[in-house]
């Protein structure tokens, strides 16, 4: 267990270094001078040069990289050019909306998919259970940006039931926060539930031919009890993995939905940072997203080891 943990922590460090380095060089592919972007096209060249050096943008690419990496190692991510604040603070400020969406949509999708799949497993001939199960194939095919627009058209524009955009904190202002969260959550839940149902069904099917089910049936358990007490718990593992990697992707990738519904989360922040050439902010956000991504994957792996003894041994 400890060895596993240590090995994963080493991997985590390697991944962060690789991502940080790749990011540093990729964003420098973006043409445009951040100093010029701040001061505007009418700025005097001397001012631009001064700002460039203040932002650590002079010197060769290599020198810039070394100085940036040095600062990061000391916990200093630099200052955002557009927010005029330390990057770390800006990033932390934008985490709650994204995390709210990611956590809520993951939990709802997980529960929904387990409910739908177990219902189908227990009563495979119920037409509604079957229809819901089949619907998952369609749910996988819906483009999220498109269904967002359609939902806005139906529920905000035509029926006027729900706001089409906006965000309020769920903790300080739940009455205002909930209606605005409904549409983005529905969009996220549709795609995820479809994926989870397919994953869970596949893995439940994989359990069906195993011998322990014969034992369970032989001792007189009803078919639905066999499904719910024996097959389902054993089939949950792949779903947990899927849930974890999906959650990690949500944390870094709700870009489109956040921008359609104007939710001030990490994805929205990132889009803005790229369009304003806010290099320090882009670097900070990506490092953070990568960190969250590997941490969530680490947690999934550890929970795997905790649940399944076979993983611990290998």
């Amino acid at each position, binding site marked *: 267990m400890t060895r596993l943990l240590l090995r994963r922590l080493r991997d985590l460090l390697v991944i962060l270094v690789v991502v940080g380095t790749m990011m540093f060089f990729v964003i420098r592919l973006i043409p445009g001078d951040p100093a010029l972007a701040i001061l505007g096209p009418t700025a005097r060249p001397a001012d631009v040069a001064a700002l460039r050096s203040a932002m650590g943008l002079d010197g060769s690419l290599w020198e810039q990289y070394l100085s940036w990496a040095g600062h990061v190692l000391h916990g200093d991510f630099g200052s955002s050019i557009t927010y005029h604040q330390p990057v770390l603070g800006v990033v932390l400020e934008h985490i709650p909306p994204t995390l709210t969406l990611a956590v809520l949509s993951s939990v709802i999708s997980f529960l929904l998919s387990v409910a739908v799949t177990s219902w189908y497993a227990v009563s495979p001939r119920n037409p509604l259970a079957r229809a819901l199960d089949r619907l998952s194939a369609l749910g996988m095919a819906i*483009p999220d*940006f*498109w269904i967002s627009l359609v939902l806005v058209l139906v529920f905000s524009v035509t029926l006027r039931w729900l706001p089409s955009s906006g965000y309020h904190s769920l903790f300080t202002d739940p009455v205002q926060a909930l209606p605005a969260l409904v549409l983005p959550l529905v969009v996220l839940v549709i795609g995820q539930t479809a994926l989870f149902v397919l994953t869970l069904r596949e893995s439940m099917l994989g359990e069906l031919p195993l011998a322990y089910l014969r034992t369970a049936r032989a001792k007189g358990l009803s078919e639905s009890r066999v499904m719910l007490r024996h097959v389902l718990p054993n089939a949950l593992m792949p779903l947990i993995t899927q849930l974890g990697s999906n959650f990690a992707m949500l944390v870094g990738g709700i870009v489109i939905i956040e921008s359609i519904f104007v939710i001030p989360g990490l994805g929205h922040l*990132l889009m803005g940072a790229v369009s304003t050439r806010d290099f320090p902010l882009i670097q900070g956000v990506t490092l953070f997203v990568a960190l969250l991504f590997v941490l969530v994957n680490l947690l999934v792996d550890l929970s795997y080891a905790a649940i399944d003894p076979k993983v611990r041994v290998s």
Partner: protein
Amino acid sequence: MRRNRTLVLAAGALGLIVLIVLVLPVFLPSVSATDPVHRLLPPSAAHLLGTDSYGRDVASRLVSGGRASLGLSALITVCAAATGLVIGLVSGFFRAADAVLMRVMDAWMSFPAIILAMALAISLGASLWTELIALTVIFTPFTARVIRSRVLAVASRAYIGAARVSGMGRWKTLLVHVFPNVLPLALVQVVVLAAAAMLVDGAMSFLGLGIAPPTPTWGNMIAEGRSYLVTAPWLVVVPGVTIMLCVFLLNLVGSALRQAVDPRARTLHELQRLRTRTT
């Protein structure tokens, strides 16, 4: 048998869509002919799917956008599948390469895809090529991982050991014995990739990171129609439903194919169907 019918029907429908996209533009009104008098018309006999804000015929744009969307998705699929296959094969078969390659793949996957796409699109100009590069890079690690796990399973079989004992070279073993056994899975992966590529391609053009207007793609048609969501909803609905239909058909083909190449999955489904009938 039922699976085969699904496969044939879904593949046939997809083939029909491809055929329409390739042939129909010849017979439809021009894609770029603007007609300010007849703008934002609802679907009618003259314009089957209505007209957009410039008075262009939506049906012709949809069909011609299909060339871009389907063509680009196919191209992305081929590139990502090929690189993923090579990386997966090498990494699954050579332990030394595996450690390095999989770490790189992990880092790659934790890199925000959209940033890469945006950086490429902004620096090189949003075009077919930047989207192709960005999406190939995004999809490669997923394919590589799937292929690798299959290679690992194949490599532990006795006949691989037998090949080594009989003096066959490592690379030749990989090509002659491992590759053919991985190929069916790779084909399934191609279909899965194509479905994913269609969705992400739609999202990219929607964000303005793909092929730029006035060349129509299904994604940028949705983006352009967004401003007229209330007055002309068909501008958004029509291309969206088209993307959905294609992805849905591809998913059907994918799952049917997988059951065709993987006997275990097939038996499982037979089992489940047996249960459906008996309980």
